[in-house]
């Protein structure tokens, strides 16, 4: 389960965009391209700020009706796992942006195998390839 969660977290990193929003599931993407898109300052690492910015964008496109929350019908593949329940900390049946980002940072921490508080392209690719 942990591996699935991490893989989906990395998939999330790779999935910002209208394609996911339209299809309701993360497409198979190039993790190196996703890394480059997320690494805004081009220093070869994804730091917390860059990761958060990416996750906000992912959440924006996940929230199809733009009401500020993601619900099961909007979550695509997430509906098929218990990831929704894991993120829905207050159990209100919907995920706020804060809940979403918090859940994704759990995945960030797990993927950050050297505890550097940044993700390297190797860490991202490694997790992606473990899917």
């Amino acid at each position, binding site marked *: 389960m942990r591996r699935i969660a991490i893989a989906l977290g990395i998939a999330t990193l790779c999935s910002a965009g209208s394609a996911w929003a339209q299809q309701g599931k993360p497409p198979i993407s190039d993790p190196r391209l996703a890394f480059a*898109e997320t690494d805004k300052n081009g220093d070869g690492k994804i730091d917390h700020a860059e990761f958060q*910015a990416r996750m906000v964008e992912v959440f924006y496109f996940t929230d199809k009706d*733009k009401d500020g929350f993601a619900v099961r019908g909007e979550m695509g593949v997430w509906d098929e796992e218990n990831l929704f329940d894991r993120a829905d900390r207050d159990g209100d049946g919907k995920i706020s*942006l804060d809940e979403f980002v918090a859940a994704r940072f759990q995945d960030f921490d797990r993927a950050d195998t050297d505890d550097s508080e940044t993700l390297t392209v190797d860490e991202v690719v490694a997790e992606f390839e473990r899917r």
Partner: protein
Amino acid sequence: MSVATLRGTAVLLLLVVALGGCAQVGQGIEDNPKTTLGGMLGAAGGGLIAAAAGGGAAGIVGGVLLGGLLGGAIGNHLDQRDKQLAMQNAQRTLESARTGQTSTWHNPDSGHSGSITPTKTYQAASGQYCREYQQKVIIGGEPHESYGTACRQPDGSWKIQG
């Protein structure tokens, strides 16, 4: 809409734009206050035009977006079709384009063109989604760049913020 209501709307729009600062075109406030002032008036004027035309709330919001995006000296060089194309492109892009994705418009009749690129997405304390953007308008082959922030309104339109 009554004259008093229109006047109130104008004051409110001027206040909002003045406090927030309109999208700057090419230069900063300290460099060219006249241009920035023109941007403010462009934003408010756009809203008033929409209101006067009976566009309702959505029309006013669209007008504010139009004025904010294309105010100042640059707006004076664009015709109505240019502004319509730019506004439609901005609304569509802010709604559905990912950060970093540039969308362009082109008016073959005037020869003018432009683009807009969302540069950051965030959620305001109110829960509104907001996006920072970079805009470029090309007039006579010369590019003019501006930057700003727009927030999504409940009706799905996007309104320029400070």
